């Protein structure tokens, strides 16, 4: 188990006052705020900062941590010595940073709920496990058809001898069709385990879509660009388009221009009601890469000599 250098995480000296620790924490909490930070690893850094502050802002935990840090030989794998927490009482007041507790094995072994239950001699009272939160990324096709995702979770619990053990479990999560970005899904009983017969907490996952330049999604409505040839737009055509809802045949009205949107009602993300799918026409011109192609364009230039696409901008014919 890796020893966590909590003072370094917050960028303070071990002699820092409680006020300095709070100031350092708030500065970093702004810097790594997951909703606004531009840092690539903002979420994981925020979790580290939260964990460090959860220990260093609590006088009992900080004192116990300081004692451990003094006894530790640097560079070696860490395991807490027996009785390391004798004389300290961490209580069960919860974390000052709330439920963001994506904490390390180091924290959970020393200060987590299992550790507190062990410290109190295997507390008699039933404790429900805490709810946990995570984000899960899916693609648009998953939202249309549903999907299964694997999710590895760490958990800390007491074994039969009241030792704190860290384990990993993998959930095969079946995500229902019709989920929208920003929605939360709930997995009952998949949060932190309870103690003394208490029920496990729940796991909540906020859904986000993987970026896909082909689609723009607003609620359940989906917009997709569709390239069309100039003659298809000008003369009208029936074209086949691969969409997240499957291949569809679409009639392009004659006289269509670049950017025209065709609405396919109910072909957006499924739901009650389902969203709509918008196909945005994008004119694609064949390359003039040989004499024959160039001749066709030259013929068009002659035949459409009065056509000036910049006329709406005020250009002279």
């Amino acid at each position, binding site marked *: 188990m890796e020893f966590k250098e909590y003072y370094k995480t917050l960028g303070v000296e071990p002699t820092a006052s409680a006020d300095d620790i709070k100031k350092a*924490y*708030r500065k970093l*909490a702004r810097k790594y705020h997951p*909703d*606004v930070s531009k840092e690539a690893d903002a979420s994981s850094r925020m979790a580290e900062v939260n964990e460090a502050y959860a220990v260093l802002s609590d006088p009992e935990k900080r004192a116990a941590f300081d004692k451990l840090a003094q006894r530790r030989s640097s560079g070696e794998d860490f395991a807490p010595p027996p009785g390391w927490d004798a004389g300290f009482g961490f209580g069960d007041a*919860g*974390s*000052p*940073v*709330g*439920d*963001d507790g994506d904490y390390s094995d180091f924290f959970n072994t020393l200060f987590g709920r299992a550790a507190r239950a062990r410290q109190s001699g295997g507390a008699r009272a039933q404790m*429900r496990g*805490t*709810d946990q*939160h995570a984000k899960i990324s899916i693609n648009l096709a998953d939202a249309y058809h549903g999907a299964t995702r694997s999710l590895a979770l760490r958990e800390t619990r007491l074994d039969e001898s009241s030792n704190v053990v860290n*384990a*990993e*479990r*993998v*959930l*095969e*999560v*079946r*995500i*229902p069709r*019709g*989920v929208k970005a*920003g*929605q*939360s*899904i*709930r*997995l*009952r009983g*998949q949060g932190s385990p309870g103690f003394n017969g208490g029920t496990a*907490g*729940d796991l*909540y*996952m*906020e859904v986000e879509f993987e970026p896909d*330049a*082909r689609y*723009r999604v*607003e609620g359940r409505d989906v*917009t997709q*660009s569709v390239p069309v040839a100039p003659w298809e737009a000008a003369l009208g055509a029936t074209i086949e388009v691969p969409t997240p809802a499957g291949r569809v045949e679409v009639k392009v009205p004659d006289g269509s221009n670049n950017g025209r949107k065709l609405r396919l009602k109910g072909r957006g993300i499924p739901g009650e009601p389902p969203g709509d799918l918008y196909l*945005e026409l*994008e004119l694609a011109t064949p390359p003039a890469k040989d004499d024959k192609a160039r001749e066709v364009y030259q013929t068009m230039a002659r035949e459409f000599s009065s056509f000036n696409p910049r006329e709406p901008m005020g250009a002279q014919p």
Partner: protein
Amino acid sequence: MTRYKVDAVLIDEETLDLQELASACAVPSTWIVERVEAGLLACDSSGGEMRFASAHLVRARRMATTERRFDANQEIAALVADLIEEVEQLRRQVHAAVRPRD
């Protein structure tokens, strides 16, 4: 390593009650009620009891986190949540307005 198969439930199809939301946000249920009564947090009370959907859960967690991290009062935390929601909306609009190019 143990593997489990589980079915996820969309919260908007099976909304949360007051106690469930409080537990998910690691706050007392009175914390939720105070903010609903102050108009800082919405809920669906059409069935006679407070029910909360995905958007309410996300907002309540943001407000609780801001209050804890920065010792912010509830109005400031709600203002921060308003601004983050606005930023998210604007980001979506920008993304929708920018047509993808090869």
